[in-house]
């Protein structure tokens, strides 16, 4: 049966390289762009391996529906959504239970970074569209969402950066691809505010001993710190472009 044959495919070769040629502690290639949508108040785009994700922020603006507005702070609303063509088998465009859960955990992971109390009675609406998915979408979504918030000029304590670590064929590995996530033994997505050592998202599924868990957390945090640099570069690059355009 094809499913069985696929399972036997090795995820790590004799030289310790993964299917896509990466080392165990190596991230997928990452490309980030800030300010990619003209209508949104803030936006960003990320490619991490084959993942392609777009995030747009509207607000702070009048909250809709109005009764949801909070008297002492802004309301953060988040929609994580996958395009029907983003995965192998067409996904119904209606929000799945997975998407509803991820919208919630992503919102709760971003919330600690934002000074929501600066904008009472308003709402900040964040829309994340996964155009193509290949493992680790919640992490890439968080990374790109926090850039979109920053691009919208919303004051934040730090950027949120996220990365997953996991276990494949008995070994801990960074930033799992879809195949590695599905066939691997564990996946631990983590989101971090690097300057505050604040973990704002932590999930896990699979099976890890306590030692492995601690190592996976540290591996994931390391990945976060590497992506953090790329995030800051991408944010700066936008303002260099703006500056150059002004000078012309």
């Amino acid at each position: 049966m094809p499913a069985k044959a696929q399972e036997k495919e090795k995820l790590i070769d004799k030289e310790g390289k993964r299917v896509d040629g990466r080392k165990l502690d190596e991230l997928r290639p990452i490309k980030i762009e800030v300010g990619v949508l003209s209508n949104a108040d803030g936006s960003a785009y990320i490619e991490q391996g084959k993942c392609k994700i777009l995030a747009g922020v509207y607000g702070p603006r009048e909250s809709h529906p109005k009764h949801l507005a909070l008297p002492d702070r802004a309301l953060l609303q988040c929609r994580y959504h996958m395009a029907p063509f983003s995965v192998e088998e067409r996904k119904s465009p209606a929000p799945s239970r997975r998407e509803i859960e991820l919208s919630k955990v992503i919102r709760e992971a971003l919330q600690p970074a934002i000074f929501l109390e600066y904008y009472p009675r308003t709402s900040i609406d964040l829309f994340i569209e996964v155009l193509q998915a290949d493992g680790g979408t919640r992490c890439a979504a968080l990374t790109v969402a926090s850039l979109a918030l920053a691009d919208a000029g919303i004051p934040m304590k730090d950027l949120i950066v996220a990365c997953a670590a996991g276990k494949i064929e008995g070994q801990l590995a960074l930033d799992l691809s879809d195949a590695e996530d599905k066939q691997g033994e564990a996946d631990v997505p983590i989101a971090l505010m690097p300057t505050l050592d604040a973990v704002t998202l932590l999930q896990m599924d699979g099976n890890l001993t306590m030692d492995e868990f601690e190592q996976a957390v540290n591996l994931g945090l390391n990945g976060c710190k590497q992506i953090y640099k790329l995030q800051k570069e991408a944010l700066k690059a936008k303002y260099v472009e703006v500056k150059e355009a002004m000078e012309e």
Partner: protein
Amino acid sequence: MSSVMVKVKQKQIAQLIAHGKRLDNREPNDYRDIQIEVGFIEKAEGSARVRLGKTEVLVGVKVDVGEPFSDTPEEGVQTVNAELVPLASPSFEPGPPDENSIELARIVDRGIRESKAIATEELCLEPGKKVIIVFIDVYVLNHDGNLIDASGLAALAALLNTKMAKYEIEGGEVKKKPGYVPLPIKNYPIPITFAKIDGKMVVDPWLEEEQVMDARLTMTFEKDGNICAIQKGGDGYFTTQQILDAAKIAQQKSVEIRKLVVKE
């Protein structure tokens, strides 16, 4: 609760917790009293009613025959659904499941699935065509905090209580044979939930603690003491050290609590 009330209460609860005490006199790592009653619903193949302090959750397990998923043609199917029944809390409203009930169901599901608690490979009747489906329905009857642990515990107790008909394939048709067999269970996942309040961690937060907590962390341990699922919730954050400390406490706690459900 209004945000002013929350702030007043938060101060009081946080001051107590800073001194290692809690409003209901528990220690930071103490659970509330746990009572488990199994077989409460005779019409369900398995059921359990768990009381965790005043929190009350009823789980019913129904077993049926259906089609497998195309990527696992030789495995039975497990589904978890959670209902936050309106009679359980003034904050619950009738209607389709909201994000809270979906998250609750998915945390319970992940614990059972990732620990491989149900031997789904033994639930195949005809590969690719007919498998046994296990419906686990979590019914919250009274909400006084920590629905996750109460639901996880009730789900495990209900699965262990489940007896299903003997199914056999005869001439392409599924037939029920006389007699019952227990649902094959291989593992016993136990979720342990922490609340972080003003920088301190407490286990099994009750409602008033949940209303003022900064963040929530659930770690599910399987029978060998390994972690099989984690979920962070709430609007706050944890430091790396808080997470690692919590994992050690949760591992110990899971051993204690498992003894209440699994009599070996």
